[in-house]
């Protein structure tokens, strides 16, 4: 059952990705990206990664659509047609993809109990979490307690990203207005 659900959802993901690539109107791209994030959150739930699924749902479906639309307002909503077929990028992508697939042959199978990650750190975490912590959700315990330094770094990353975006958007105003970019969402399809 789980395999069938995964197969259907992954096929839908591939279909939506192809749709995003073929889409010329950037509005369509934003909408399809929202649908994509819902589907990938469903896959994460089937894989039992509940915290990640919640993050994906919150960020991908809620915030990123709004931010992408705000960006479209600043840039214009149609993708320019490509001047010529790009052979070299296709070649690079194909080679990289083949190399990645080749690399997965050495990885342990999905969900196999003898995989290194299930041998080294995870049993230790679970043992300590059971003995020392109240929090039943071990993900929270790992994030905020064992890996407290990492989470502090992540908070700083969010802070830095926010400051960067604010500086970029505040910086010099009305530069794009003269550069021939249409600021209105003109071409509605």
């Amino acid at each position, binding site marked *: 059952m789980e395999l069938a659900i995964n197969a*259907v959802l992954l096929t*839908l993901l591939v*279909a939506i990705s192809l749709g995003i690539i073929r889409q010329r109107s950037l509005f369509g791209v934003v909408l399809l990206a929202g649908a994509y994030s819902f589907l990938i*959150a469903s896959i994460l739930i089937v894989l039992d990664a*509940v915290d990640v699924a919640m993050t994906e749902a919150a960020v991908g479906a*809620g915030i990123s659509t709004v931010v992408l639309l705000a960006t479209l307002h600043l840039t214009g909503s149609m993708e320019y047609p490509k001047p010529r077929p790009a052979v070299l990028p296709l070649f690079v992508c194909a080679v990289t993809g083949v190399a990645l697939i080749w690399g997965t042959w050495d990885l342990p199978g999905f969900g196999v109990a003898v995989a290194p990650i299930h041998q080294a750190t995870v049993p230790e975490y679970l043992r300590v979490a059971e003995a020392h912590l109240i929090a039943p959700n071990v993900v929270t315990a790992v994030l905020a307690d064992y890996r407290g330094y990492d989470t502090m770094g992540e908070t700083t990353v969010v802070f830095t990203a926010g400051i960067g975006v604010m500086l970029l958007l505040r910086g010099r105003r009305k530069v794009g207005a003269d550069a021939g970019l249409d600021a209105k969402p003109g071409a509605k399809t």
Partner: protein
Amino acid sequence: MFHVAVIAVLVALVLAVFRALAGPGVFDRMLAANSIGSLAILLLAGLGFLNGRPEWLDIGITYGLLNAVSTLAVLKFFRHGDLAFDAEDEA
């Protein structure tokens, strides 16, 4: 019994994704995206009961709340061409 619900929702998801890819206009795509959100919530509820972990419904509530945000953002963008348009400016 939950199998029935999950299979039905998956079939509906396939059809909704077809509409999202085929839909001639932006509004058709938006309708399909909204339906995909609703179907994802139902799929999640069904899966939670199927796997005996119904506390996953928290994620479903998150989906439900945020689905509205993205859809309303797109609609506002279409109505006014601006996300932060002030209602007071409207005559």
